[in-house]
């Protein structure tokens, strides 16, 4: 009798944990964290270098001001996909 009731309690507990919503952090993964910089904000200026095969060349965002649009595409690491 005692065994039966403790099994029933266990069953209820298991059912409750199965029905409980997943923890907030697991849910959060579906929605990417919003950026601080929003559409309409001024893009912060920068000056960075690239290697053209013989020299290091400077490129700044402000050099394109009034001349062309700029796509600034941040990627995670060289030699990875995308």
């Amino acid at each position, binding site marked *: 009798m005692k065994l039966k009731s403790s099994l029933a309690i266990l069953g209820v507990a298991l059912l409750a944990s199965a029905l409980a919503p997943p923890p907030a952090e697991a849910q959060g993964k579906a929605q*990417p964290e919003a*950026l*601080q*910089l*929003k*559409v*309409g*904000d*001024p*893009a*912060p*200026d*920068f000056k*960075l*270098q*690239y*290697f*053209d*095969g013989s020299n*290091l*060349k400077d*490129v700044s*965002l*402000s050099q*394109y*001001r*009034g*001349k*062309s*649009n*700029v*796509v*600034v*595409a*941040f*990627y*995670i*690491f*060289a*030699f990875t*996909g*995308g």
Partner: protein
Amino acid sequence: MKAFQQNLQKLEAADTQVLGVSMDSPFANKAFADQIGVTFPLLSDWGGDVTRKYGIYVDKYKAPRRVNFLIGKDGRILEEQVDREAINPTKIVDACERKKLSR
């Protein structure tokens, strides 16, 4: 970066310069550009100052998030693509072509 290279003619025709940015060294980025056939500059944010300024540094990976910003001639952000969405730049290419038509 390959996806931008594939759309480079369209983007250039719409007055748009493409710049890749990562925290790799300029020399690693040059080797990467050569390997995947990218002809636009891959800039080196060695140390991550610009990545932090843009609010997309991920401490866990010591690297930027994958984010594309389209910046207009006035220096303001016109479009953003974040993480997985940023792999396919169609939204940005379309936005550039719309701007070109409305000019």
